[in-house]
């Protein structure tokens, strides 16, 4: 356990030193603040809770950005160290291979969580500072959104680690990571939409739709954030959510599995690999 923390700590130290933490935090905060103030313009003061608007815009932002940042951080976690030659020395130390993987993962997750909390939190702080009154329900939804965003980041970190243990070269890892990102963030939903159009209004079995939504972590995330409360009306996701039996606990569970399973497989692959 101590080794895990040592490895995680070094990963955070490195992230701070090479400006990863600073860059992602500033990027997320900058975009979040922009969306907050641009987003408040059209609604004006018609009574819609402004934080709910922010939740809708931030989750749409997070769906694109967090997987990308997570994959950028994690895709060379193992293969990069192996290519730079630092891995072989680390493996000669009294530290287990799973401790290396989990430690590095936790380090990256802390970086991502920090950036998300500070970056997105800045939007909420800015709203409060500008004198907006926010209901407790909106605060809860906002907290859920933050938690879900970190979980979404964890999912793609985990996928990145799996890529990083499977491939032999950094450049391959980068290519695969971009492919994965495009697939889950863009292609999957377009294909799903295309499928629904092709079905020409015939009812898609609910179970199939649920399965398809859970099979993509970004869809599970979208549904978790936008499927209920005030956000569902604002985003138009209410319709999808109503037709699906997926509750928040199930969606959370799906995201947790998405975060744990690839990392577990990465651990097994790495344990078997020869350095």
């Amino acid at each position, binding site marked *: 356990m101590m080794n895990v923390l040592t490895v995680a700590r070094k990963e955070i130290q*490195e992230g701070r030193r090479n400006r990863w933490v600073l860059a992602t935090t500033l990027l997320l905060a900058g975009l979040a603040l922009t969306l907050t103030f641009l987003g408040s313009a059209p609604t004006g003061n018609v009574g819609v809770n402004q934080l709910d608007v922010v939740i809708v815009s931030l989750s749409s932002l997070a769906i694109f950005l967090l997987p990308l940042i997570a994959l950028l951080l994690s895709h060379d976690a193992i293969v990069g160290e192996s290519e730079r030659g630092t891995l072989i020395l680390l493996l000669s130390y009294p530290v287990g291979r799973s401790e290396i993987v989990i430690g590095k993962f936790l380090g990256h997750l802390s970086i991502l969580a920090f950036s998300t909390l500070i970056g997105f939190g800045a939007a909420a702080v800015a709203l409060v500072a500008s004198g907006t009154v926010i209901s407790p329900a909106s605060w809860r939804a906002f907290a859920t959104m933050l938690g879900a965003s970190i979980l979404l980041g964890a999912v793609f970190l985990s996928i990145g680690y799996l890529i990083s243990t499977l491939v032999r070269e950094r450049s391959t890892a980068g290519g695969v990571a971009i492919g994965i990102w495009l697939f889950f963030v863009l292609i999957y939903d377009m294909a799903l939409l295309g499928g629904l159009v092709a079905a020409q209004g015939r009812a898609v079995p609910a179970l199939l739709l649920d399965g398809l939504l859970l099979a993509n972590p970004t869809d599970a995330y979208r549904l978790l954030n936008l499927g209920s409360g005030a956000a569902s009306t604002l985003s138009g996701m209410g319709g999808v959510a109503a037709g699906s039996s997926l509750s928040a606990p199930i969606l959370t569970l799906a995201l947790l599995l998405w975060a744990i399973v690839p990392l577990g497989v990465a651990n097994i692959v790495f344990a078997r690999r020869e350095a």
Partner: protein
Amino acid sequence: MTSSVITSNVSKHYGRVAAVRDVSFDLKSGETIALVGHNGAGKTTLIKLMLGLIRPTSGSVTMLGGDPARGDFHVRQSVGYLPESVSFHMALTGRETLTFYARLKRVEFSDAELLFKRVGLSADAVDRPVRTYSKGMRQRLGLAQALLGTPQVLLLDEPTSGLDPALRQNFYDIISALRADGTTVLLSSHALTELENRADRVIIVDRGVKIADGTLDELRHIASLPTRVMIKLSDMEAAPQWSGDWCRQSGGGWEIGVDAADKIDLLKSLTAEPSLLESLTLAEPTLDELYAHFLGRQAAE
């Protein structure tokens, strides 16, 4: 003396390529061993096997009484390793790097701090990012991490390649001190001359096979390479009057190769009339010649 490392009939195949074939040796505590071979002869593979980073295809490796591939804490803690052309995380400083490795080995950082002095890494360099380090400084940091926790076995892969002579000397001084403490030190190298007088024992590998193993004297004896005797005569025009195949040297001197058994007799007759000689030089076969001999023998088989 107890054995720290034992390899018995170890082979390692990568697909159809045999990187190491049927290698057996025994490294004792307090022994300094030179592992010598061309690039690609299997030196690094042997070191990785001893570290347990890879598993032998057949045969067995024992490190400090255990299987290194099991990764026992006390075994890993007592082994220091300096990889060939060691690299570190560029963004961290020397101190942060060593602290990280010290934590993993459960070494007090105050002890780690002393190592900077020992390897000669200056105080201002310690707090600079490793990115700014020269090759020599990186190698010093590499040695510092290998020395963490006073290891019983030290495996140094090409530790002095590309270092300047002063640093090399520094390196060997540290290794001599370790030998006195009973540490097993294994140095791999393809530059042989610099290992002369440093190693108690030389193991030569070629294409994955161990082709020689012994002290330098033993190897010289086995190879029975001639000692070279070089003389300069007082009379530059004269030819040497002693029997044998004297060869004229470019500087006007004469040279002959003589077997160990005949060496004393030749010297006796050479020095019988001192006025004939201007100078006399003896050259024992160097490690390079020895190495070439064993490689040549291997190729002939």
